């Protein structure tokens, strides 16, 4: 009798665990592809209303302390700090502040300088409104074996993947992908293949165990004034025209695909059954797709659309943002300061559905997970901003209703003498404590 009760209890427990397992699988997997649509899939998602935008900002000589800084901007319309600068932390000096990214637990914000190869790690968990600088990596070049220009910061489990731009031998485009632990300790360097030496972005599709990397140019080029560079035909040859397909787990290149004209930002489709990624080619103004071929699992690169009129190129297509449902792609062109929105429901035939001028120049675009809010910043590189047109510097916030962008607020970084705003990442009150005011929309969701 006792044995029967135990058996029944065990059966009951096993069935309960099975149900929990199934639900757990569903929820955990749904959270796997996550965050504000273009972040690492290895990061918990921030759903609902973001409270802060962390803007990595280039310092400008004569503007305030002149240093690069992380600026927190209030982004929740239900809060009194909405549309206002909440906090600012200078790192001291100008390093060509560029990109940044959050760790896999969203506790830290890593930002890098393309000129000095300095990396700064901010704690954004302890006080989401006030990021705190907790570590500086000032030996990146030495530790990595000569890599220069840490560009991307892409969360992996327990690590940060850092696709870079250059090297310390000739400051050209030959470069590598560097990995650090979340604690800021060097792990390894993987050099780009000889036939495709340039670097820029690196994005992983865990479902396929494939990583794509794209290609820009080296320190010698990206630190030159834009007009001077574009007038130097020889220097203009030193841009990448390749996208590399990698076996991610083994960190080994499998294919080199040709995508002419500096293919930059890579966005894998978020739905696992969509086995493709979008990439914009900056110099040619073309939108490309990289598609997995079902017959053999290899990939092909296909042009899927134009970005702006042919006769106006190069407009410098600089950033893209894909909606969570894989149907809508925002594309920023720096030179005309416009965003173009594409219907990419048919991924091989991108169809422009909207266009809006954001400012005299525009660079980064980030959207909320629900696609209702879209943010833009203006700065590309210190020596590339404001050449041939006004040098507006701003963060602008819009609502997107599926048909048009409606401006909600703008912060003039020039008028406030803050700097040149570049990459944006989102933060939320209570994300790391579970404590969130009940009246505020958008309770934390990911576990």
């Amino acid at each position, binding site marked *: 009798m006792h044995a029967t009760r135990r058996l029944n209890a*065990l059966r009951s*427990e*096993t069935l309960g*665990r*099975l*149900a*929990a*397992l*199934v*639900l*757990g*699988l*569903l*929820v*955990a*997997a*749904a*959270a*796997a*592809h996550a965050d504000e649509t273009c972040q690492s*899939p*290895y*990061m*918990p998602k921030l759903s609902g209303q973001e409270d802060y935008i962390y803007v990595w900002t280039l310092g400008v000589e004569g503007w305030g302390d002149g240093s690069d800084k992380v600026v927190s901007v209030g982004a929740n319309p239900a809060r009194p700090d909405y549309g206002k600068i909440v906090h600012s932390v200078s790192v001291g000096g100008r390093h060509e502040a560029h990109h940044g990214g959050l760790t*896999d*637990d969203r506790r830290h914000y890593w930002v890098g300088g393309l000129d000095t190869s300095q990396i700064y790690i901010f704690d954004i968990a302890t006080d989401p409104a006030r990021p705190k600088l907790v570590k500086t990596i000032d030996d990146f070049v030495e530790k990595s074996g000569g890599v220069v220009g840490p560009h991307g910061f892409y969360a*992996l*489990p*327990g*690590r940060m993947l850092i696709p870079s731009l250059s090297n310390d031998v000739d400051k050209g485009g030959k470069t590598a992908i560097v*990995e650090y*632990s*979340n*604690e800021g*300790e060097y*792990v*390894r360097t993987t050099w780009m293949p000889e036939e495709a030496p340039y670097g820029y972005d690196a994005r*992983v599709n*865990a*479902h*396929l*165990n494939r990583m794509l990397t794209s290609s820009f140019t080296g320190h010698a080029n990206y630190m030159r004034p834009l007009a001077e560079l574009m007038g130097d035909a020889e220097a203009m040859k030193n841009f990448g025209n390749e996208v590399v397909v990698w*076996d991610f*787990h*083994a*960190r*080994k290149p499998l294919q080199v695909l040709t995508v002419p004209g500096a293919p930059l930002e890579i966005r894998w489709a978020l*739905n*696992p*059954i969509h*086995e493709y990624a979008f990439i914009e080619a900056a110099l040619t103004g073309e939108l490309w797709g990289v598609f997995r071929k079902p017959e053999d699992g290899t990939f092909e690169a296909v042009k899927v659309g134009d970005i702006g009129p042919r006769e106006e190129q190069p407009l410098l297509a600089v950033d893209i943002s894909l909606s969570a*449902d894989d149907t809508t792609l925002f594309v920023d062109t720096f030179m005309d300061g416009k965003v173009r929105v594409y219907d990419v429901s048919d991924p091989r035939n991108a169809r422009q559905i909207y266009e809006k001028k954001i400012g005299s120049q525009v660079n980064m675009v980030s959207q909320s997970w629900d696609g209702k809010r879209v943010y833009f910043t203006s700065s590309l590189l210190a020596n590339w901003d404001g050449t041939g047109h006004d040098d507006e510097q701003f963060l602008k916030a819009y609502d997107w209703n599926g048909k048009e962008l409606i401006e909600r607020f703008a912060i003039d970084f020039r008028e406030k003498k803050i700097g040149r705003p570049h990459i944006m990442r989102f933060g939320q009150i209570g994300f*790391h*404590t*579970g*404590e*969130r005011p*009940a009246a505020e929309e958008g309770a*934390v969701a990911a*576990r």
Partner: protein
Amino acid sequence: MKALTATIAIAIGIGVGAGLCLAVAARAHEAHRHGGTGPPPRFEAPAPGSYVLPPIARIEEHVLLDSKGEAASLPGLGEGAVAFVSFVYLSCGEACPLATASLADLDGRIAGDEATAGRVELVTVSFDPERDTPEAMARLRAGLHPKGRWRFLTAESTDAVAPVLRDFGQDAVLLRGPDGDFTGELRHVLKVFLLDDQGRVRNVYSTGFLDPRLLLNDAKTLLMEPPPGS
């Protein structure tokens, strides 16, 4: 197998709005794969020894409690052994069951492969020791029927497990409701850690990486390495 598939289908049917059905079904398909019972994966795991797993961090020795309530060291690995360490809490309804299911799959693969049998250990550690007593961990162990060495550890208290979590870099936060009371849930990112016999973390896996084939080949890759100093 059929029951699991049917249960997933039912869960999708009753739990998901129409607009999200396709995406969730696809992710369920992916999750099902990670559970080890689904259709063929979309890639072949790279062969053991064809790649390297550089050290990421080093873990200090910690003393916890095993499922008998006795002191147990972590990592505590013998020479030439490797371990997968997973942090869970038993009332977790989301990521933890995925981690445990993946380890259960891996347990069978390890036991059935002469290259790994007896040389690869699994360790499940609770980060909710106040509720996950040794007795509770023992019940979990009994329900899983491990084929190989699989330890289930907890601690005397939340304070006792905190240094372990810090050392591994495993986040875990008690979620509190608007009234400030503990909701019974913890926020954490699902992570499984691969350790070598020197206590070094050689890989970290989260939802997207938690493929038992990759884990098995990673363990084999470490076991193929020459001993230190050779």
